C-alpha cells in the first residue's frame, strides 16, 4: 500500500463547513439508514393507498354515492371527500415513522447520536437532520399517494397539486412534535404502541376523515379541533375541491400547525443537546 501522509485533522477537517452543513450530514446518515428499508417504505407508500382507496374509497364510496347521487359529504363524491384526508394521514404517518423509533435508536438502542456528537455535530444539528430526513420520506410518500389518487380520479383539477407541499409541511410540523416527545423517551417501553392506540388511532377516527367533523357531537368534536390531521384535512379539501373555509380558519389551520412545528423543533433541539451532554 502506498504510504499516506498523515496531515492531521486540523488540515483536513473544516469546522466552519461542519457548522454550516452539519444538519445535512446528520440527514445523510438517516437517509442512508432509511434506504436499508426502502422496500418496506415503497410497499407501504404504494400498498397503503391502494388498499384504502379500493376498500373505502371505492367500496364504501360506491355505497354512499349510490344513496346520495354522487353528492355525499361536502356535496362531492365520497372518494373526493376522503382523498385529502387519506393523503394527510399518509404524510403524518410517514413522518412519524422517521422521528420516533429512529430517535430511540439514536439515543438508546445503538447510541449513534453520541457518535455524531463526538464527531462535532451539535444536538440541534442532529435534531434538524432527523426531521429533514423524515421530510424527505414524506415528499416521496405524499407524491406517490397523490399520483395514485389522481389515477383513481380523486381530484378534479391540478390545483390539488398544492396538497403535496402542504401535506409535507404539515407532516414536518407533526413530526417535530413527535420528535420532541421521542427525545424524552429513555427506551420504548411500549410508549409508541400507547401513542399509536390512544393518540394516532383516535386522531384518525375523530378528525373528520371519513365524515364531516360537524356531524359529531360537540362532546367529542374537540378531538378533531386539536388533531393535526383535521387541520391538514380541512386545508387539503380546500385546495382539492374548494371546500369552503374562511380566511380566518385558513389562518388558524396554518397557524396551529406552525406553532406545533416550531414548538416541537425548539423542544427537540434543547432536549437533544441536553441528552448528548448529560
Amino acid at each position, binding site marked *: 500500500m502506498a504510504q499516506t501522509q498523515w496531515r492531521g485533522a*486540523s488540515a483536513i*477537517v473544516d469546522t466552519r463547513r461542519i457548522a454550516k452543513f452539519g444538519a445535512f450530514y446528520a440527514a445523510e446518515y438517516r437517509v442512508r439508514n432509511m434506504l436499508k428499508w426502502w422496500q418496506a417504505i415503497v410497499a407501504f407508500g404504494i400498498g397503503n393507498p391502494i388498499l384504502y382507496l379500493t376498500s373505502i374509497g371505492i367500496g364504501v364510496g360506491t355505497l354512499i354515492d349510490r344513496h346520495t347521487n354522487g353528492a355525499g359529504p361536502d356535496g362531492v363524491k365520497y372518494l373526493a371527500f376522503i382523498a385529502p384526508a387519506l393523503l394527510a394521514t399518509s404524510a403524518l404517518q410517514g413522518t412519524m415513522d422517521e422521528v420516533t423509533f429512529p430517535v430511540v435508536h439514536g439515543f438508546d438502542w445503538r447510541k449513534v447520536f453520541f457518535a455524531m456528537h463526538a*464527531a462535532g455535530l451539535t444536538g440541534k444539528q442532529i435534531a434538524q437532520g432527523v426531521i429533514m430526513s423524515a421530510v424527505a420520506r414524506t415528499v416521496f410518500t405524499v407524491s406517490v399517494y397523490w399520483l395514485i389518487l389522481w389515477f383513481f380520479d380523486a381530484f378534479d383539477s391540478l390545483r390539488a397539486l398544492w396538497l403535496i407541499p402542504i401535506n409535507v409541511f404539515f407532516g414536518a410540523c407533526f413530526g417535530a412534535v413527535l420528535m420532541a416527545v421521542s427525545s424524552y423517551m429513555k427506551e420504548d417501553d411500549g410508549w409508541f404502541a400507547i401513542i399509536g392506540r390512544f393518540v394516532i388511532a383516535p386522531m384518525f377516527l375523530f378528525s373528520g376523515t371519513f365524515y364531516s367533523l360537524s356531524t359529531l357531537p360537540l362532546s367529542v368534536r374537540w378531538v378533531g379541533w386539536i388533531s393535526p390531521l383535521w387541520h391538514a384535512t380541512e386545508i387539503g379539501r380546500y385546495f382539492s375541491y374548494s371546500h369552503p373555509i374562511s380566511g380566518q380558519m385558513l389562518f388558524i389551520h396554518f397557524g396551529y400547525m406552525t406553532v406545533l412545528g416550531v414548538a416541537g423543533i425548539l423542544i427537540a433541539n434543547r432536549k437533544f443537546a441536553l441528552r448528548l451532554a448529560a
Partner: protein
Amino acid sequence: MSWTNVPRLGLMSAPEPKELMISATNLSKVYGDFTAVAGIDFQVARGEAFGLLGPNGAGKSTTMRMITATLQRSGGDLRILGKDPDKVGPQIRAHLGVVPQSDNLDTELKVHENLYIYGRYFGLSKKYLTKKIDELLKFAQLEDKRNAKVDQLSGGMKRRLTIARALVNEPEVLLLDEPTTGLDPQARHVLWDRLFRLKEQGVTLVITTHYMDEAEQLCDRLIVMDQGKIMAEGSPASLIQEHSSPEVVEVRFGSDRNADVAQDIAHIGDRMDVLPDRILIYAQDGEVALAEIIALGLHPITSLVRRSSLEDVFLRLTGRTLVD
C-alpha cells in the same frame, strides 16, 4: 497502515518544549452531592501515550468525557488543542478521535458504510473517504469484512472497527475509553498491536483502563485515579519503582490461615499486604523471600514470584485492588 510525517514527540531525546494537546488545571465535575472528579491536574503532550488508570468509579470516564468535549466541567480550567471545550466544543471534537466504552456503530449499515458515514460527519469528501476507507480497513485487519454487517463481527472486530472509525479524520488526539474491556485475551493482544502501531507513528493517545497490563503496555505516562483524585503520576516503570519493590511473592495458605501466617512472616521482605485470599510480600528478590518462608517450615498451598506491577502500586496507594 503506514503514515509518514506524523509529528513525533521524541520522549527520550528532545529537551525542546512540547506542544500541549490537553491541559487540565484543578479540573472537577460534580453531580449534586457527588464529586466524580475532584480537582485534578494533568497535561498531555503531542505524540504522547497517556493513560488514566483506576478502578470502576474512579472518575476516569467522567474525565474522558470532559476531554472529549462532550461533558461540561464544574470547575477548574481545561484546554484541549489550546481551546476551551465549554466555548468551542464542536470545533474541538471535529479534530479528535473518540473510541467510546461501548461501541456505537450502526448495526444496520455495513462495515465500510460505518466508516463512510462517520467521515461524512466531518464533512469529508467521497473522494477522500474512498481512499481512506481502504487504508483503515487494512489497518483494522477487516478487509475481508468490508461488506459484512456489523452484527456479523466479533467483539474484537467491532472494537477495531470503532478505532478505525475514530481515525477517519486523522485526529490530533485519539481518545480510547476502556478499549479492551470485555474482549478475550487474543482479541486484546490484536488490539494492543494496532494501538502500539499508532503510538509508533506518533499519534497522541489518551487511554482509560482498569487493566494494569494494558497501561504498562501502551502508556508512556499515566495518572492513577481513585475517588476522583490523582493518587500518582509518572511512567509505569517509575511508578513501580517509586511505590513498590521490584518483585512480589504471592502465597496462599487458605483464607482462614492467611492472617495468622502473616504475623509469622511479617519480617520477610520490604512490606506485606494481607488480602482475603492471599498474602503479598514485596521484596528486592522474590525467590529469596519465598525460600525464607519455606525455611520457617511454612508450606503455602500455592506460591508465585512475579515482577511488581501497577496493580501493586494501586494497592499501595489506595489500600484496594483495581478489581475491588
